[in-house]
């Protein structure tokens, strides 16, 4: 018998094609070294993957040939704004434009314009070494993009490997709204999506991210957000029925007065596994972060919420709030929640809390006593539970898709 997991990461990575992006050489060589050094996928002994088993990835036999089937959630082609569509990792269309917004394929981004310096862990290292394209969006100084910029990722077929690296740059005092829509319906496939956002002084970025997934694919999705002085970032992460999804959201509040908002909803059924890891780095004074994640788990689904807040020594007057609430709808559903605070400044306001419970039986009784069937009443309560976050989503595209998903 094969020695379990031995060299599993290297073996897995050998199925992938070398990147066609021009990342700085130092990053590439370090990422390569990291993979060689790690050699194996992290086990559940590692802090980052305590509740997420990666051993199953070993079974994937990936092909690099692209194929495509119709979309899962229909998003009508935009008549306003900018819409960028990827099918199984391939950039297939860019529609719309706006003055001060530059959209280019990631392959065309020169080495000097890849801004992230540090690639942590095997997911990011693999993305550095094997990403096949992506999109780069740059918004000029003081440009307020009035309509949404939509990035749609679709994948389908079988044994597909999709590795993409996107980069969004907002120059000083620019503002934009991004919709990032993932429509997965691939079998035995693998996705590794990395999105970097650079927010210059006073810029504002709002993002709505919708992940829907059919089929048994393994999806890794990383966002790295770098915030300069007085910039503001807000994201709603909506994850539905994912066989296996791991999200890593890390924010670097690098300068004074940043505002960061991380809202998320995740909903799993059957044997879905949804893992949300977030890290908020308060690196400078007078910054604020607000985080709220809500999970709904049915069947045998499992969820993870791991929320880390790092307050650096100089980051006085930081306000950091984190909250996680989960609803378990069956005896076999489970969630592991872990807040982790590391605070090195003394003048800060930090709070965190996590609760996991069942459907409010009194509320259910009340609704039924008004003539509403048990299943409709249950749906109502679930929607009500998520309303705080789902209601905050401005994107009409996503609201429509949610209507279909939530009934």
């Amino acid at each position, binding site marked *: 018998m094969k020695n379990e997991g031995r060299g599993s990461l290297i073996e897995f990575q050998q199925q992938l094609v070398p990147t066609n992006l021009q990342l700085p050489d130092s990053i590439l060589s370090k990422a390569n070294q990291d993979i060689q050094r790690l050699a194996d996928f992290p086990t559940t002994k590692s802090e980052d993957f305590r509740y997420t088993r990666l051993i199953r990835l070993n079974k994937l036999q990936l092909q690099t040939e692209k194929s495509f089937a119709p979309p899962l959630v229909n998003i009508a082609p935009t008549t306003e704004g900018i819409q960028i569509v990827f099918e199984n990792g391939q950039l297939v269309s860019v529609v719309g434009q706006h003055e001060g917004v530059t959209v280019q394929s990631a392959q065309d981004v020169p080495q000097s314009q890849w801004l992230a310096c540090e690639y942590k862990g095997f997911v990011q290292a693999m993305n550095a070494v094997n990403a096949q394209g992506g999109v780069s969006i740059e918004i000029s100084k003081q440009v307020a993009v009035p309509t949404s910029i939509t990035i749609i990722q679709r994948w389908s077929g079988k044994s597909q490997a999709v590795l993409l690296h996107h980069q969004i740059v907002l120059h000083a005092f620019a503002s934009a709204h991004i919709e990032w829509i993932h429509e997965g319906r691939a079998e035995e496939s693998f996705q590794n999506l990395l999105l970097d956002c650079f927010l210059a002084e006073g810029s504002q970025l709002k993002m709505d991210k919708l992940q829907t997934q059919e089929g048994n694919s393994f999806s890794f999705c990383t966002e790295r957000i770098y915030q300069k002085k007085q910039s503001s970032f807000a994201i709603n992460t909506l994850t539905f029925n994912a066989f296996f999804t791991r999200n890593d959201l890390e924010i670097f509040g690098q300068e004074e007065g940043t505002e960061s908002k991380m809202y998320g909803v995740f909903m799993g059924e059957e044997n879905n596994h949804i893992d949300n890891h977030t890290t908020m780095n308060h690196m400078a004074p007078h910054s604020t972060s607000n985080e709220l994640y809500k999970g709904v788990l049915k069947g045998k689904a499992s969820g993870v919420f791991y929320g880390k807040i790092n307050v650096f020594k100089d980051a006085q007057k930081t306000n950091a709030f984190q909250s996680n609430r989960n609803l378990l709808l069956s005896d076999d559903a489970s969630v592991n929640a872990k807040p982790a605070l590391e605070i090195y400044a003394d003048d800060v306001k930090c709070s965190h809390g996590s609760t996991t419970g069942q459907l409010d039986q009194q509320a259910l*009784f*009340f609704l*039924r006593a*008004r*003539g*509403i069937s*048990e299943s409709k*009443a249950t749906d109502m309560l679930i929607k*009500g539970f998520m309303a705080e976050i789902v209601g905050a989503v401005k994107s009409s595209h996503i609201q429509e898709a949610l209507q279909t998903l939530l009934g």
Partner: protein
Amino acid sequence: MLKIKNLHASIDGKAILKGLNLEINPGEVHAIMGPNGAGKSTLASVLAGHESYEITEGEILFEGKDLTALPIEDRAREGLFLAFQYPVEIPGVSNVNFLKTALNEIREYAGLKPLSAKDFLQLVKEKSALVELDSSLATRSVNEGFSGGEKKRNEIFQMAMLNPKLAILDETDSGLDIDALRIVASGVNALKTKENATLVITHYQRLLDYIVPDFVHVLFDGRIVKTGGKDLALELEEKGYDWIKAEHA
């Protein structure tokens, strides 16, 4: 309309109702009074179909049908309504949206078409005015951030919207000031017809000045131990429950 015969009910193995008899006919207003812990809310919950209670003996007929055989929602669809003693708050579920669903499910059960959006809104307007419920409250999340009085008025608003055959009001007067009490009572009175009936559960005689009962029952230790006219309420107000307790100790 409602016939309860020798009803015994328990929760977690503890007997609460111990042989309760009650008959309510269309057009009647009944009041049930009784000391704390007598089993008044238990009776209301059992009628509405709360699944924590076990009926160990007796029967409940609603318009000739065995009520105990029906799930909670079908009892409501048959025309039973319970105004809760402690209305529950449901964040994220809008008051009018849930009422629209409720109303249409009840209509569907009766073989009626769903109400048009326009007719529904007209109904909301009319019925919220009846209990002087601010129209902003009608659209907010169910009872979220409502004052005690607003919650109770919201219960009567729902009753008005759903137009039940039998309404059970569990301590709807508790926590209401005199103005709110008057509003709630006039709402209930306005909804009264020859075909429907009301069962008012209360602690205090006060409410019965406004909703005048045809019958007053005293519930004590899981049974109705005394029945009279509205004067019985005055007598209870004056003498308290001790003499009842003494009689049945």
